[in-house]
């Protein structure tokens, strides 16, 4: 009996260890340049989207007042269900004409694997853009500059 327990335990431990080695990740500098819109600071949610087009993970949230999170409608449904802790990856909102540089962490395994990155934007009592910026995560793409469709003029990313 005891031996069985130990073997199960060791399998579990080994499994966990191998899992952690799999989650090697890279930090990227990401610059968001806003258009010259007027109004409140925009809420921007950066998410990882799996090959099926579903939310996989929240990478960054610009906007620290959760009273307005529901204005980022699509993501709000995902966030609400998951209830994960995003304290460490939140920052202040950015207003029209402003820009911000943030550090985001993406697992290496998600690059060139059909995943994409989505920048979702909303301004309270104003428009909401489900994919202000969205592009597939490829080694090429991730170093480039991507134009936005809504409140974002462009974003630039760079691995560190």
């Amino acid at each position: 009996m005891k031996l069985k327990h130990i073997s199960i335990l060791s399998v579990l431990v080994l499994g966990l260890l191998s899992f952690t080695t799999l989650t090697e990740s890279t930090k990227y500098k990401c610059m968001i340049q806003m258009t010259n819109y007027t109004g409140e600071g925009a809420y921007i949610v950066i998410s990882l989207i799996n090959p099926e087009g579903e939310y996989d993970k929240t990478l960054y949230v610009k906007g620290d007042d959760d009273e307005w999170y529901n204005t980022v409608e699509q993501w709000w449904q995902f966030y609400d269900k998951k209830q994960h802790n995003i304290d460490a990856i939140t920052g202040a909102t950015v207003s029209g004409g402003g820009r911000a540089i943030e550090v985001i962490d993406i697992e290496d395994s998600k690059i060139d694997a059909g995943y994409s990155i989505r920048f979702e934007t909303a301004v309270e009592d104003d428009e909401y853009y489900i994919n202000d910026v969205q592009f597939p995560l490829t080694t090429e793409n991730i170093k480039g500059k991507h134009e936005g469709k809504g409140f974002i003029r462009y974003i630039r990313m760079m691995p560190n």
Partner: protein
Amino acid sequence: MTISIWRYSHLALAVSSFVFIVLASVTGIILAFQPISEQLEPYNVANLDNITLAETVTVFQDNYPEIIDIKVDANDFVIATVFTEDGNNLSGYFNPQTAEYLGEELKPSPFFQWVTNFHRSLFLKSVGRFFVGLCSFLLFLIAVTGTILIIKRQHGFKRFFSKIINEDFNQYWHVVLGRLSLLPIIIITITGVYLSLEKFDALPKTKTTHQVDFDTLIESPKQNASNFSVFTNTSLSEVKHVEFPFSSDVEDYFTVKLHDKDLLINQFTGAILSEVNTPKVEVFSALSLNLHTGKGSILWSIILAVATANILFFVYSGFAMTLKRRKSRLKNKVKAEDADIIILVGSENGSSIHYANMFFKQLIKQNQNAFIAEMNAYQQYPNAKHLVVMTATYGQGDAPTNANQFLQKLKEITNTKDLKFSVVGFGSLAYPDFCQFAYDVDQALQQVYKPVLPIFTINDKSVDAFSQWVSDWSEVSGISVTIPQKHLTIQPKQLKKLKVISKTKTNVDNTFLITLKPKKHHQFTSGDLLAVYPKNDYRERLYSIGKVAGNIQLSVKLHENGLGSGFLHSAADGDKIKVRLVKNSAFHCPKKAKQILMIANGTGVAPFLGMLQQNKKVESHLYLGLRTEESYQIYQEQIKQFLFDGKLTKHHLALSRVGDKHYVQDLLKRDAKAVAKLLYNNCVIMICGSLAMHKSVMSVLEEITVTYNNKPLSYYQNKQQIKSDCY
């Protein structure tokens, strides 16, 4: 009641917004502790005035391979995001001189966030924000109307901060605290309104837009960031935010936000690519936010918290005053044309109305045809036989608001010459123009009607004096009316039991000294009052206290059938009697005066015996008026000891039934020059004894100051140099 438009507005604004104001105040007080708790964090490690931006940039570049940005927050904490050698990013507070990581950035606690949300929008989002902004504006208007009320009350802007006499707890503190917290409240409300307007896009739009000519960007001559002249010439205290170039491409640059301008700096040459001044709106927004929240200053946060706590008190005291006023509304059963007895009231804050109403109700009980109205409502009274005017005096001897047209109307509207009148003046001897308006009214009435009684003045709402007038009037008018005293006084609470430790025999004037032992925790001093309850009911009698050797010494004249004096006289050593100690700070021995002149007659000497016993070094003169030398005997020993110990500098005794028959005022006249000089040198004169003596002494003093100092006595009264406690 005629209420001035300002008071009406003040009240109407308060009624319409007080719920929101209370909610915003309570949460505001809580939120004041957020900046305080932030400021107490240990991240403010250096004086940012003494550090240049170049120093900080250099030390960061030496320590970290990559820097994203460096910020300086309202608390002067330096926040940065960097990459470390091992490729991890590090974000939080840093030491600007060593680039040492100090700790993670403080996230506002969920509690404070919750309270902040409630404070600015009541959880109602935009609608709530609108209401909070509106109420902030209403509170601003309340502060403005309140200021106008104070200016009117004080008779001029210059007298805004001069002393107010404490007649009513709520009213006194409403005004006193109102004056003190006026400025912070105005700042809180204006910034509050501004912050709301900002949320609603109601402010002029201004954007800082940079124009960079990318075609002319050059990479040489290359310089180290530590040598950029912009960086070396800028101290860290001017900096809000420095964003480092995104990549080493020349088209990426440093973005430097200072408090007054935005700069773009070439990352290779240090040249300024673009410079835009911060729009005024943005500067004012930042200022508003800091002023409204107290961010960055513990002292200002505390001032905001205290001022906001005062707002809560204003809501309470304001409504308490209003309810009290409403209680004293005038209601009639008969028409003015049909009434026999007309009562006219002049009152600013309702306390005289209280007395007038009592009198009126008693008349109605006796089935008299009485009518009560404000003085301004004066009209023709075809059936009236008696006119009673009860009025306070406002400010510097002026009419109260609801009596300010009376004298004019009296000239225009005539009634039968047989109308019999009596004037009762309410006031306080603490003011220079004691009952002045009542005297003016009495004079004016004498021209047209018949006085049944000489003008009667009542000091400090004295119940006894009022009862005295009622019985006088009852006698001359033949209309029997008495006012049960329980209507005029409040049931005493929190009585203390004190032991009688000694009592002298009565002297020729039937006067005796009685000493009571206080408990250690009882706080009192000479000049305070002791209330006794001879019949264990609502009836109270007040005596001036002399604190002698820590005990309470009273000087009491035994009157025939005297309720209070008889009660104290019958108390034996060791008896315990129920009393109440009444603070009377208007008659405390002044702490700062270098000279004191004490004037007393009869038992009025009691508080002075205590003050002299407590006296250490102040030059003191005592003028004491008594009947005979034998009257003096019970005080003689104590006073001689004071002279011997140097506690009393000079003593003058006036005996009214011996030899030349002197009164204290005669001695003052004799020493006129010396008295004038004392007043000139800021000496404080204290008067205790009978009202008759007070009147004579005041007129002698008036004569002295006018003759020798070329100033009316009111000049010294306004300087708080005359204090009285008379009965």
